[in-house]
């Protein structure tokens, strides 16, 4: 037994072996993402965005070599995210924390960023409050209220008087519901009813029927990406709600590339708001999509663009500090930074450190063989409205 235990301990010591010291000319970026579990695809797409940026721009910035250390958080696991962030800081001596697909994980890691004074770039997680949790944190993705308040306002201005909202019953869904309703009513519209659908394995037909009974001019829908957009598309079609007689609105997830593929022609006419789609028509985006396809064999999505622009921000901030990786220097450099992204013009709000960008209004239309999101209107320079309302 004693020998066996010694063996065990030896095994542990071997596993926990020391990590060798690195040259000082290296800037280390610790990337925390879900690479396994149900959010793995999000993690991979985001990471591919990071990889593409580094392929295109090399791994040297301001005379320093960039090294990325990737960690799998495995899903919604804030305690793991926090531990990984702690370990990256104290053991791997990373200078920058990045990634973060999911809100709870980003919130937990933000505490480490605040405590250790490390620059942190949130490349996806979309809850408004995240940026308030560390003064060294910036975001390059999107916030849910940013999209949906802009959208609610736009829908009211477009002449729609009454809507019914149907959202998934979890954090982002509730945020979407609140933001859309708030802006829609502020702009003179009327919400005639709302319903929350369980987030796991919902059967939409009863909920869709309720929406139909309320007889609104339009329905606003928020469901998480994946299999649900297609399911709700089918439910709408089977209850006779088509974009022809009832306007269907939603946040961009419901017409993501995969969702459109499975909905087919049922999707034509759905109007959505989002900050990025691979069909966005600009020379820069066409180039980005081609390069992404060449490297990874698929189209980029909002996660890819979050990772790509996140790296853009890190590189640019490092250029500006001349390679100094101090948290305060980097966040000061990032504040107010403006650039042209494949998604269009964007910047980092100098006050809130959150992303400022264009929200595109798109309609699903038949383009050749497939249905795709076609942008037909936009709201420029949208800030996160929740933080604008917060007392300073």
């Amino acid at each position: 037994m004693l020998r066996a235990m010694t063996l065990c301990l030896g095994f542990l010591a071997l596993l926990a072996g020391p990590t060798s010291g690195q040259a000082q000319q290296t800037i280390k970026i610790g990337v925390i993402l879900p690479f396994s579990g149900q959010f793995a695809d999000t993690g991979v797409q985001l990471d591919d965005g990071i990889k593409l940026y580094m392929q295109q721009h090399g791994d040297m910035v301001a005379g320093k070599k960039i090294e990325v250390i990737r960690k799998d958080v495995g899903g919604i696991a804030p305690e793991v995210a926090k531990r990984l962030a702690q370990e990256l800081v104290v053991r791997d001596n990373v200078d920058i924390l990045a990634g973060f697909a999911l809100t709870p994980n980003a919130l937990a890691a933000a505490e480490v960023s605040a405590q250790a004074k490390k620059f942190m770039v949130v490349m996806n997680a979309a809850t408004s409050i995240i940026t308030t949790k560390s003064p060294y944190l910036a975001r390059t993705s999107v916030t849910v209220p940013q999209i949906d308040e802009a959208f609610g306002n736009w829908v009211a201005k477009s002449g729609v008087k009454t809507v019914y909202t149907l959202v998934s019953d979890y954090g982002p869904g509730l945020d979407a519901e609140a933001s859309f309703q708030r802006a829609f009513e502020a702009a003179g519209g009327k919400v005639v009813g709302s319903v929350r659908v369980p987030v796991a394995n919902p059967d939409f037909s009863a909920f869709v029927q309720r929406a139909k009974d309320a007889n609104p001019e339009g329905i606003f829908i928020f469901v998480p990406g994946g299999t649900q957009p297609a399911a709700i598309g089918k439910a709408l079609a089977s209850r006779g709600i088509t974009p022809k007689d009832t306007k269907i609105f939603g946040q961009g997830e419901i017409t993501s590339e995969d969702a459109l593929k499975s909905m087919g022609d049922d999707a034509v006419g759905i109007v959505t708001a989002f900050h990025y789609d691979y069909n966005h028509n600009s020379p820069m985006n066409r180039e980005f999509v081609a390069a992404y396809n060449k490297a990874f064999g698929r189209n980029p999505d909002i996660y890819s663009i979050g990772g790509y622009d996140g790296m853009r921000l890190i590189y640019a901030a490092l250029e500006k500090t001349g390679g100094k990786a101090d948290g305060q220097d980097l966040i000061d450099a990032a504040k107010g930074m403006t650039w042209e992204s494949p998604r269009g013009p964007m910047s980092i709000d100098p006050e809130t450190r959150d992303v400022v960008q264009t929200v595109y209004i798109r309609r699903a239309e038949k383009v050749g063989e497939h249905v795709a999101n076609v942008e037909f209107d936009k709201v420029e320079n949208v800030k996160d409205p929740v933080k604008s309302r917060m007392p300073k």
Partner: protein
Amino acid sequence: MAGVADPHQYLAAKQRWAPIEVAFWLAMLLPFVLVPTYLPLASQIAITAIFAVSLDLILGYAGLVSLGHAAYFGLGAYTAGLIAKAGWGEPFSGLLIGGAAAGLFGHLTGYIVVRVRHLALIMITLGIGLLLYEVANRASWLTGGNDGLQGVAMWPLFGSFDFDLYGYTAYAYSLAVLFAVVLAARRLVHSPFGLSLRAIRENERRMPAIGAPSRARLRTIYTIAATIAGIGGALLAQTTQFVSLGALSFERSAELIVILVIGGTGRLYGGVVGAIVYMVARDRLSGMNPQYWYFWIGLMLIGVVLFLPNGILGGLATLLPRRSRAS
């Protein structure tokens, strides 16, 4: 067991500390000097070990399979987190209150749990776990729902040790609690009460016939296990200063069974060894290959179950016959 005539003598012999146990606990102090940058991981291993020991008490000793043990873990975590959020950040009392809340819930649910066996038992414990998860999800005004519980601020431990970035305080605290829990569990399983649990596991009908009320004893151990799970949860909430729905999730219950199976059920230290092996392996494998590391975990699980049916400790005991007779 053969050859020992007097049960008191037998139990007394079991109570004595083996040198290997002393060596084991001394080895648990090694991370402070050998791998000081791994202390956050070490403290989460200690917490998982506490949780595993609590499951072992009902699964390994009393034979109650539970797929919803995370309910008590999560309840302890949320209780401790909410107390700290409400302004009482003293860690030690928060720990006890977290444990007590989980224990109370364990006692109440125990009345249902001990009535059923086999498949029904799995379903009921699974149901309790899912129920509590959904309650916490719905009560987002209280728990923060999907975003997790924000603003858990802990006071320094004993008024002087802050929870630092390197995790010194967190590991020392978790290790001390783990030691106390194992000490208590050790006394428990080597008492006449613990012996009667094993007898109930082997033949539940016979025990009442010889004067030991099966259900009452099962309820007692279920309450104790729930309390310990709650203490583990409270510890996680305090050391990470964050609670999420993950603390209550089915995945956490299922992972715990994997840990216990790897370590060895019904052997006090099985949960501790399982937690160490599983979490260190997970950390190493996911570091090497962030995308496909579950493959290796699966391989390890199959390997353990095929070749070491009683877990790592069971396998070691077979390799060392002297020890196997003793345990």
